[in-house]
């Protein structure tokens, strides 16, 4: 190999404290170096020309520039050598400015150090290989997992950008948690009024294909080319035929089916449409309650369906979709309040969750929007809201703040006072978290305008007395014990990861934190990316957040997809891991540690297992290389031999 070495003086920035002439002279003694010179400003136009001229006149095959940080000018010099016909990876840069001339004034020591740094670069360069990027075609369809508000926003934004969208929703209707809400804070605008049109849009956009009541079964492939198997769960109704007329739901004799949409307050029919605004507005048979499916007799719906859409023999079906990117907006679950036995959630009918109360408040809810107690239908007068039920409590492994409860309690208290002006609302709280736009003002309104009584302190116990509930707790501000006889207690249950979050993450090869929330690529700078290229996050699956933040993330994820799809192909960075199959022993440790799912195992014809790098997915961190016991997998441009050469040359 013929190596040229260029020592930049950087004016006096380097030459001031490093004898660049001496460094160049010494470099001539290094192996394979056939040309070495120092120059005033190597990065300048004439400086680059100097390199290019030397490449042609000395027929150089590799170039070392000792100058500033490669984080500054590596791209510049790579371009320069490429123009002169050398592969850009046959270039090394020694950082003798930031790491040498600028940090010490001892000219001799600096010069010795600069010589070492050049020597290390030369030894590395001697082991460099020409590397080439490859182009991978991008399938410009996007999968959105989850049809809550975040997913809907992402899907609509993508759709608006002309992308084909596949949306998968686990429930029979999209809309997510927001569809169940009556009003939204801090504006008290009607939730379904603002979400409804978006849901309808999803149904009507021609470039959105919606799989409701479906789940992601398996995912393979990589950025630009994912293959997704979707399980369409059996609804026993042919949705192509069903018009959502609702005749069947009128006649169905099984009227005690669990009403998921209304959080179990009241009941629905075995064949049902979850709620009037459901998208898709299609009937589904709940096989747990259907008399025919459980007992073999009835089939009334089949008889009366005007379009003959009932299919009792329906089975789950797997369909495969190919996409180039995935937006995960799989949402969240609410904490199960029964964990706190002392509150009596689940035991006392009038201790309810906030989401149940939300349904009670809703005009489309079980009580038509009239506030009543589940136990006896009486209008409650004394209502206690308890915050932090499953938030900020290490004892139940929920150390985090759910972020939304303070606000929705205030909203519900205001609504209550609005509906029942002679009621008393108490809020038992720990701290008030209201950092959003107009949020703190909203809390203040609840307290000052609506007279909601805020009591700081934890409720210790709730027990019945007659038909009322005694709420015992402390007011830590006043330092007194408090006891309230309440008609209704609302528990502000916190946010937790969706029950399916972890298995889904494993299918997606993305990571999640200890609470099951998905890990973003960087907490500040890459909030909607994951470490699996081509997979993006939106909404609460990444961590608790409110509606505006979820919508914002939905849009952000969509814009990331748009940016990715703005090119027809993806150029891969060639500085990725590479497997020497002759050496690979198929132990799979690389696959195990890869943070990006960029490695998969394959079986050769002779039956031996080998690992394989998906070059488009690999991010070049080198963890696999460090982990591989026999170094069969090497990170290109940062190989063991290159690093060892840098070490060895220091101590020859």
């Amino acid at each position, binding site marked *: 190999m013929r190596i040229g070495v260029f020592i930049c003086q950087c004016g006096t920035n380097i030459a001031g404290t490093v004898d660049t002439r001496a460094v160049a002279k010494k470099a001539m003694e290094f192996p394979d170096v056939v040309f070495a010179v120092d120059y005033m400003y190597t990065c300048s136009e004439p400086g680059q020309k100097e390199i290019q001229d030397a490449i042609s006149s000395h027929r150089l095959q590799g170039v070392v520039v000792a100058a500033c940080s490669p984080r500054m000018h590596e791209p510049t010099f790579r371009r320069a050598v490429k123009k002169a016909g050398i592969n850009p990876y046959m270039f090394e840069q020694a950082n003798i400015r930031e790491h040498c001339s600028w940090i010490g004034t001892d000219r001799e020591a600096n010069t010795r150090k600069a010589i070492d740094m050049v020597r290390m670069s030369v030894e590395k360069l001697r082991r460099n290989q020409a590397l080439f990027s490859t182009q991978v075609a991008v399938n410009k369809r996007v999968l959105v997992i989850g049809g809550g508000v975040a997913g809907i926003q992402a899907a609509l934004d993508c759709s608006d950008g002309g992308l084909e969208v596949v949306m998968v929703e686990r429930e029979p209707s999209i809309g997510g948690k927001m569809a169940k809400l009556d009003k939204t804070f801090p504006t008290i605008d009607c939730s379904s009024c603002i979400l409804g049109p978006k849901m309808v849009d999803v149904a009507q956009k021609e470039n959105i294909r919606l799989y409701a009541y479906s789940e992601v079964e398996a995912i393979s492939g990589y950025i630009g080319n994912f293959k997704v198997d979707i399980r369409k769960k059996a609804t026993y109704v042919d949705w192509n035929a069903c018009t959502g007329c609702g005749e069947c739901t009128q006649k169905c004799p099984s009227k005690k089916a669990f009403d998921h949409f209304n959080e179990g307050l009241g009941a629905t029919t075995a064949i049902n449409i979850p709620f009037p605004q459901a998208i898709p507005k299609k009937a589904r048979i709940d096989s747990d309650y259907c008399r025919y499916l459980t007992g073999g007799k009835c089939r009334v719906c089949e008889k009366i369906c005007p379009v003959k859409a009932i299919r009792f023999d329906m089975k789950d079906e797997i369909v495969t979709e190919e996409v180039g990117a995935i937006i995960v907006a799989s949402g969240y679950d609410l904490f199960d309040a029964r964990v706190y036995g002392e509150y009596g959630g689940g035991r006392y009918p009038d201790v309810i969750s906030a989401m149940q109360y939300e349904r009670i408040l809703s005009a489309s809810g079980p009580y038509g929007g009239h506030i009543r107690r589940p136990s006896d239908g009486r209008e409650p007068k004394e209502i206690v809201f308890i915050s932090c039920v499953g938030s900020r409590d290490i004892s139940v492994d929920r150390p985090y703040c759910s972020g939304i409860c303070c606000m929705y309690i205030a909203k519900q208290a205001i609504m209550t006072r609005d509906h029942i002006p002679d009621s008393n609302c108490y809020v038992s709280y720990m701290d008030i978290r209201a950092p959003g736009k107009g949020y703190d003002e909203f809390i203040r309104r609840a307290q000052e305008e609506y007279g909601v009584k805020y009591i700081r302190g934890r409720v210790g116990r709730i027990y019945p007395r007659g038909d009322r509930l005694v709420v015992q707790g402390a007011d830590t501000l006043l330092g007194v014990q408090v006891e309230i006889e309440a008609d209704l207690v609302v528990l502000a249950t916190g946010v937790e990861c969706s029950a399916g979050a972890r298995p889904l993450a494993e299918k997606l090869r993305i990571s999640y*934190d*200890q609470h099951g929330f998905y890990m973003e690529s960087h907490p500040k700078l890459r909030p909607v990316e994951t470490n699996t290229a081509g997979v993006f996050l939106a909404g609460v699956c990444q961590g608790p957040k409110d509606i505006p933040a979820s919508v914002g993330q939905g849009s952000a994820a969509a814009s990331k997809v748009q940016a990715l799809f703005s090119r027809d192909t993806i150029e891969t960075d060639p500085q990725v891991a590479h497997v020497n199959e*002759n*050496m*690979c*022993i198929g*132990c*799979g*440790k690389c696959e*195990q*540690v890869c943070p990006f799912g960029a490695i998969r195992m394959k079986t050769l014809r002779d*039956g031996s297992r080998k690992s394989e790098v998906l070059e488009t997915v690999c991010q070049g961190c080198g963890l696999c290389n460090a*982990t591989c*016991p*026999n*170094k*069969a997998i*090497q990170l290109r441009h940062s*190989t*063991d*031999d290159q690093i*060892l050469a840098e070490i060895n040359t220091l101590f020859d």
Partner: protein
Amino acid sequence: MDDKTNALREHVKGIFSNLELVLGWEPGYDPLHTRPFYVRTESDIDRLTANCLSFQNLTRYLAKSMNAVDPAADGRKIGVCVKGCDSRSLVALIQEKFVSRDRVYVIGLPCRGTLDARRIRALVPDPARIRSVNAEGDELVVETDRGISRFALDRAIARKCLQCRYPNPVIHDVLIGDPVTPRLKIDAENPSVAAVEALSLEDRLLFWENQLDRCIRCFACRNACPLCVCQNHCIMETRMPKWITQYRNMNEKFMFHMIHALHLAGRCTECGECERVCPVGIPVALIKEKINAIIYEMLDYESGIDPEAVPPLLTFSPKETGI
């Protein structure tokens, strides 16, 4: 013929038709030696032995020679005899997916210790004339041309056995013989490691240099290790990448043993095979025992106990801060 051998043969006879083969031991060329034995036919079963000479860790063959990860065409399993320490290697191999649990029928043999031939030679003046050795309770009975002598078993067994914490197989389909009491508690300090640590830093270096200087780079320790799974592609031998030169100097010998030790960090199950096979008597396992102690102290992890566990250096916990 001792009871354990009899019981083993009887058991194998009963199940042999369901097995592809059984990995066991047979007598070697003299009464102090035993060799691994592949029981391939019914008639082989009577060659099996199981006693204090059952040195070899047979799980080594499962990953390296048999690739016991793919199911057999006819569904038959490979039977393998394991002592307590061997069983941990098997667990580690299962963890790392080199052996499939479904593929092996594990015959567990509680173990009071295996003999160290070098210590026997020091005990018995004329080891070439030994006719038989037998462990009877806590005693070793050695029969030579000149008669019978008895020694405390502890004077003749291997170093690893003196500090054994898992004499009973941690995984098995059948247990031949009664479980025995471990010599050390699980969280007990490793006495050999403590002995090295009692030296000053300078002396420790000298100690290891003196030991490792004898190394002839034969790689027996590597090849005997059930968890050295790189087999023919060890970085000690390949020149691309080049971690090691061909020089036989102290630097390279030291480096070799550091490679071996660190590659086993969080994986070594202390079966002691590396040390037993060393032709120049380097206490090779002692290096790894320290790493095991570190990992136990730091991460509360012992290798080869839980088939479902992930070896600690192949995972992480974002929470750990004390390190």
